[in-house]
């Protein structure tokens, strides 16, 4: 992974902000993320819509265009819900909630929940382990890499010896997209038998 070390300052500046830390939540391994996910996809955020849910909370629904489904029901687009957001002049913040800026591309490990404020039968998705289930992707020097998700992203930085810091239990460093997706597919096959 040392070949991606040069990109870490860039990644830490551009990507860390999109991923909030978890609210006193335990770390999850990649296997746990796969095992507990209802849906594992690669997708791009195309829009955000903040509104009140049926429990009078402000929630922000991010519409994700699905590019690759590694596990779960296939769909063209899905909705990932964030608790919090802004409606009018009122804001609601909940520490640890991931944000989904439009244009962000990510590997997402998601669980489905019923959306009782949407038409009957609708589901929205929530990331597993809060922001741990959101691993942003970007192209660095022609190679697409997947960043560690969640709280551990903050520890991804160059060390004095030039090596990458050991970080998250799911990903310890940025991973080449194709290699990581192959690992995830293997885990899906192993865990879910798909």
């Amino acid at each position, binding site marked *: 992974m040392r070949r991606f*070390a040069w990109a870490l300052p860039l990644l830490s500046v551009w990507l860390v902000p999109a991923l909030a830390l978890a609210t006193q939540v335990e770390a999850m391994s990649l296997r746990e993320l796969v095992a507990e996910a209802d849906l594992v996809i690669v997708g791009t955020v195309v829009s955000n819509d903040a509104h009140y849910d049926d429990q009078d909370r402000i929630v922000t629904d991010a519409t994700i265009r699905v590019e690759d489904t590694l596990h779960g029901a296939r769909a063209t687009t899905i909705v990932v819900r964030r608790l919090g957001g802004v409606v009018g002049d009122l804001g609601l913040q909940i520490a640890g909630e991931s944000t989904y800026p439009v244009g962000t591309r990510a590997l997402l490990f998601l669980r489905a929940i019923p959306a009782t404020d949407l038409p009957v039968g609708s589901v929205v998705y929530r990331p597993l382990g809060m922001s741990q289930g959101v691993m942003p992707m970007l192209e660095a020097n022609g190679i697409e890499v997947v960043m560690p998700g969640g709280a551990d992203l903050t520890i991804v930085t160059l060390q004095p010896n030039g090596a990458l810091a050991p970080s998250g239990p799911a990903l310890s460093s940025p991973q080449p997209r194709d290699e990581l997706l192959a690992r995830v597919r293997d885990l899906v096959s192993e865990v879910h038998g798909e």
Partner: protein
Amino acid sequence: MSDSRQECSRRRPWAGVGQAHGREGSPQGADTHQPLFVLVLALVLALPSTAMAWCPTLTDGPPQPSDFSTCAPSLDRLPLFWRGRCTEISLSAVAPSHALSTEVVTSVLRRAFDQWQNADCGSGATTGLSVTILAETNACSMATHNTGRHNVHSIVFIDDSDVWTMTRAHDPRAFAVTYVWHDRNTGEILDADVELNESRGMLMDCPDTGCPDCPPEGCGGSTGGSVDLGNVVTHEFGHYFGISHTTLAHRDATMFAQAPFGEITKRTLEADDIDAICSTYPPGRFDDTCDPTPLGGLGLDCQPGGCGCAAPGADGNARAELSGLLIALGLFFARRRG
């Protein structure tokens, strides 16, 4: 403690990045990308130089840069804060703890708030913040904010894992969640509620020596165990005051995001936490005025309409009743005009 705070304040913003870049023996492959690296470094160093170790909770907006040890300010987002120094909070009567008595819970909450209120900002000066834990319970089954109406800052326990994960859509591994409602234009906190996940482990008031069979640093593991209420709520009350999670460089701080089962070390504030609360509310910021009444008046009934239903005896209830009366009169005359 104060020495540590000074050390934090003196830390050069983005030092981790700069030091790594400037050190000899850079990683293989980095040289070929040196022009871009230098550009990136220049961009990083061009960011505002008032970065902090601790992180404020901000209004919604563009991303906030941060790294291993610092939280940079954002030009487009505002830090959240309470305008008045006094607030009041109440336990839910319909969603109480099933593991701990009201007396124990109240005692733990008091100790947790006292940690923040009594933080020594230097020479014994404190922020002036004061939180009253009402003797009267409220009727909220969940965190709620009634815009323009009476409100109550509430502590809610949820012991049903399905309600926690499916209805409330919280992560099953989260010990607690704090809702901070605020004015997006000013950052003023209008309401704050804490939901505690009582289906996650065994909620306890652990002794100072540690939870059963655990060192103070916690037991680790992910399949359940004891959860110290004080450890959880001291962290959540940092959010209540508008402080976000700190950086990994301060993993011992109360406001670090992760906690193992059985941990009790977050009960007491570290230098980074004290720096956070004292910077957000520096001594002298508030005058002596103390009005803990929530925006719109105190409403223990947790309903968007109707009366204030403030129970007698609590601090600020007279004001809440007066507010409720005035609102009712206002509505009456408004309807008549209509």
